[in-house]
């Protein structure tokens, strides 16, 4: 629990300066690469030129912010970062202040919340003067944090309230939905939580958050000392305590399933809109030598301290050896290791100013034997007149089972739990369907079509740590007015010749009649190499041909090439 005082901003008066500086800054401050656009351009791109006429042509800068830099998500933080980098202002120090009355606000967390959303932290911003711009920025930062680090409110939800309309101490508890009743934000009457959930089912914005608590026996709820509802996180605030442009003192609460993230989010909300906060600085010590060694530069300890200070990490040489003491402000939760400080030094130095060097160690390259074999075979299959296809490893159950006349249970296929479409239901267990689909998509091409693919299929295998293994296959098909079994058989003979396996029983290879629903009865053979089956070849069953929307006879071959390593 801590409260804060608002520091009057100077940044706003410098807005114009900020924008004229940006392109210049981009040259040496490579973290920020602004892209120019305008409201007009955006509307014209998204809704067409006609809608865009009359829209503002003032240049907007789009800035890419790294996903771990929540402190750059709002204009306030970004301006401050740039000002410090340009040596225009000093990196701010944040500290907590007590309210004039001396008494801190309190938020009491009851144990009922454990069943649904166990953590909450809160803070107060005092003596704020909102302007429309600041108010918008405040709301926007809240929304960006919700979408980002808060993982769409599932990890953390932020509620902001006009402190002067409520009175502490506050209670964070959880109650059955039927027992909760209040007037939610921007509604005119009271609803129970159960009614609210059905009310918001159709709300384009709020409906995305309902699932977070919907199935829980109790819903989280925050009351003030008079029993007024502040909010029902993570869904909606109460109407009573809503903030407006006139709000002077803001009560911010963050409820969460992850306490670390809740603290980060609260720190962001507070530090971005104040100059002071409670958390003492974390101080880290590291040596300039560490930074020089990791980055590959040789700068003095003083210079490195300067580089870090420009990145809002106030640093000073300690005087002892080459040590530097670095203050980590609460705005920088991404700094969790010395390497994070090293990165800031490298960024301030400018990645593109670092001399490019070459690692000196001498290493001997080796190919992965299975890939080496694959590369060599591919060359010779193409030389044998077959064209290489490249198909997806994911497909539908139908492709590897029904269409081939097999049952999915016979396939050893792994199943995907969250496919967006049927194309991604399973990983393929055979290369054949992909080649048949390639032919179907290229029916306009002249006949015969001779295709091959050497790729991995995926099979369940209990002996592996994940219960699955890949298997490298060679598959080839011949599609023409006549089945051309002899062509595919000839390709097998050629492949065996390339792999130095002689025809014959026992030590060599031979084929023997076999039954397989994918093939035409009496036109399928098992390929036996060194006494073990490595695959099949034959003329495809007319039903299979039909199911792949083909019209001509087709013969095919598929073998496992791993036994030839």
């Amino acid at each position: 629990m801590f409260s804060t005082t608002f520091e009057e901003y100077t940044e706003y008066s410098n807005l114009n300066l900020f924008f004229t500086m940006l392109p210049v800054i981009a040259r040496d401050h490579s973290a920020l690469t602004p892209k120019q656009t305008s409201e007009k351009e955006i509307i014209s791109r998204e809704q067409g030129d006609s809608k865009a006429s009359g829209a503002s042509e003032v240049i907007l800068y789009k800035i890419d912010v790294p996903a771990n830099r929540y402190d750059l998500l709002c204009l306030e933080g970004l301006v401050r970062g740039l000002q410090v980098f340009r040596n225009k202002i000093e990196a701010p120090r944040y500290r907590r202040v007590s309210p004039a009355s001396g008494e801190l606000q309190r938020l009491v967390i009851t144990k009922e919340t454990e069943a649904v959303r166990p953590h909450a932290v809160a803070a107060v911003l005092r003596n704020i003067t909102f302007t429309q711009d600041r108010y918008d920025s405040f709301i926007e930062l809240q929304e960006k944090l919700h979408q980002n680090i808060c993982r769409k409110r599932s990890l953390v939800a932020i509620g902001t309230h006009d402190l002067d309309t409520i009175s502490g101490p506050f209670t964070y508890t959880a109650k059955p939905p039927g027992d909760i009743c209040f007037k939610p934000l921007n509604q005119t009457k009271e609803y129970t939580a159960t009614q609210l959930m059905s009310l918001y089912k159709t709300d384009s914005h709020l409906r995305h958050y309902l699932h977070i608590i919907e199935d829980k026996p109790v819903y989280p709820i925050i009351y003030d000392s008079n029993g007024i509802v502040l909010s029902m996180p993570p869904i909606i605030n109460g109407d009573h305590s809503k903030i407006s442009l006139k709000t002077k003192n803001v009560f911010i609460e963050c409820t969460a399933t992850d306490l670390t993230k809740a603290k980060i989010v609260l720190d962001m909300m507070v530090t971005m809109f104040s100059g002071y906060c409670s958390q003492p600085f974390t101080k880290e010590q590291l040596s300039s030598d560490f930074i020089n060694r990791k980055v590959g530069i040789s700068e003095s300890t003083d210079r490195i301290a300067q580089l870090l200070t420009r990145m809002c990490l106030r640093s000073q040489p300690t005087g002892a050896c080459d040590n530097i003491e670095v203050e980590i402000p609460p705005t920088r939760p991404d700094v969790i290791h010395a390497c994070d400080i090293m990165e800031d030094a490298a960024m301030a130095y400018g990645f593109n100013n670092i001399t490019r060097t070459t690692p000196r160690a001498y290493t001997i390259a080796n190919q992965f034997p299975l890939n080496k074999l694959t590369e060599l075979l591919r060359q010779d299959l193409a030389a044998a007149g077959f064209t290489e296809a490249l198909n997806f490893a994911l497909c539908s159950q139908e492709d590897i089972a029904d269409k081939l006349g097999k049952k999915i249970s016979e396939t050893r296929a792994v199943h995907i739990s969250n496919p967006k479409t049927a194309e991604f239901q399973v990983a393929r267990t055979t290369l054949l369907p992909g080649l048949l689909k390639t032919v179907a998509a290229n029916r306009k091409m002249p006949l015969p079509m001779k295709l091959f693919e050497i790729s991995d299929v995926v099979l369940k295998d209990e002996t592996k740590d994940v219960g699955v293994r890949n298997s490298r296959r060679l598959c080839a098909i011949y599609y023409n007015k006549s089945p051309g079994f002899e062509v595919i058989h000839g390709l097998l003979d050629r492949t065996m010749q390339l792999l130095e396996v002689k025809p014959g029983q026992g030590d060599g290879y031979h084929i023997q009649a076999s039954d397989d629903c994918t093939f035409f009865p009496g036109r399928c053979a098992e390929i036996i190499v060194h006494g073990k089956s490595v695959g099949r070849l034959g003329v495809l069953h007319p039903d299979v041909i039909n199911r792949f929307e083909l019209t001509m006879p087709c013969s095919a071959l598929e073998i496992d090439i791993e036994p030839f390593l």
Partner: protein
Amino acid sequence: MADTGVAETLLRRLEKADDGVDSVEVSGSLGVDHQLVVGAVKSLQALGDIISAELRSSKHWELTGEGKEIAEQGSHEARVFSSVPAEGLAQTELMKLAFGKVGFSKAMSNKWIRVDKAHEGGPRIFKAVCIESIEDQVREKLLLVQKGQASQLEEKEKNELKKRKLLSEVTVKSYWITKGDSFSTTITKQETELTPEMIASGSWKEKKFKPYNFEAMGVAPDCGHLHPLMKVRTQFRQIFLEMGFTEMPTNNFIESSFWNFDSLFQPQQHPARDQHDTFFLSDPALAHQFPQDYLERVRKVHSEGGYGSQGYKYDWKIEEAQKNILRTHTTAVSARMLYKLAQQKFTPVRYFSIDRVFRNETLDATHLAEFHQIEGVVADYGLTLGDLMGVLHQFFTKLGITKLRFKPAYNPYTEPSMEVFSYHEGLKKWVEVGNSGVFRPEMLLPMGLPEDVSVIAWGLSLERPTMIKYGINNIRELVGHKVNLQMVYDSPICRLDS
């Protein structure tokens, strides 16, 4: 050489001519179709320098079918005039004649005839009172054209006749034929191809051979083709091998979340671990085997920190790590390899892989649910950020890319992280070509690697450079069954540095 007769006649005429002959005139005087003469010219040209022929085109006026009829029988109006007897003709009768309608109105406007509308038995036509005979100018003009004296007519007159569809202007292409350097009136038959008999008998020495048409295309060879994406993959493999990188065994599409995320210090609430981004398995849903002590160190660094790190401070769950997924990057294999390396006495290594990865993403013209990731990893004592940029410079130089810039980025398992940009000469701007970084100590130290060992790595997709290289805009034309096989047949060899 359909008709050697025409060709020989042509040559004899040419022999007698002083300067040359015109093909149209020859066809006229021989009484054969002009095309036959043109054929003879072409075949003589093919024999070498016997004749030379210059293509000329001329325009001239010709009578149409109707024009010829008029030249013969007189204009419609003249025929109307002459068919009206002294006692007159019923208009209905006149209209029955073939030339009646057109002739009537023209004759009327020439005032050659008059109509008595009040005549009993319907309107009747009489010759105009004052006219005894008429001058049929139309016919005379047409006769002039027929005699080849069109030049005597004025342009205006010709155009008027053209409008009446009696004349048409035709372009005639003819050859002006002159003697060539090796002119002769006799033609020797040319051989088309060299035969074994000619070689055996030596008769080829006396024979003349018909010249080849070098303008024509050859016959396409009957051959197989490698897939363009795989051709590019072969080149990238080659580059890594040239640079001393050993290939990693990436033939395991299914990974546990542990190796894909946790071992890389990617927190369990990271968005990449969402259902929206990653394919999870329902069968087999969980991995069942982990190096237990390493797993414990990973749990600890995530939840409590260690190795100089504060960690992410959250409740790390084994249930989350066990979940089987389709790997989202080959870095999962790099993690396995680095862990394996840490279990031996450390020696510097360079690793690479190029293989499939899977993302449960929204698909569009450049994104598929699966693509090939190219990855390079170097582990050594004391590697610097400068070393990473140096290796990248060498790597991209082999791709023909020399202008590189680096931009800070964020990646949970590398720090620093850098996006790699190259200057695209065609697009005239900097485009992102890859991602790179230095693996975090929180990833490497729990594996058991020595503290002073750094590991640098980078990655890029195989599809993007291939699409740029082969000018393909829709990824589905390149990868998957909707591939355009013609594109595969026609794709050139792949040299990435040119």
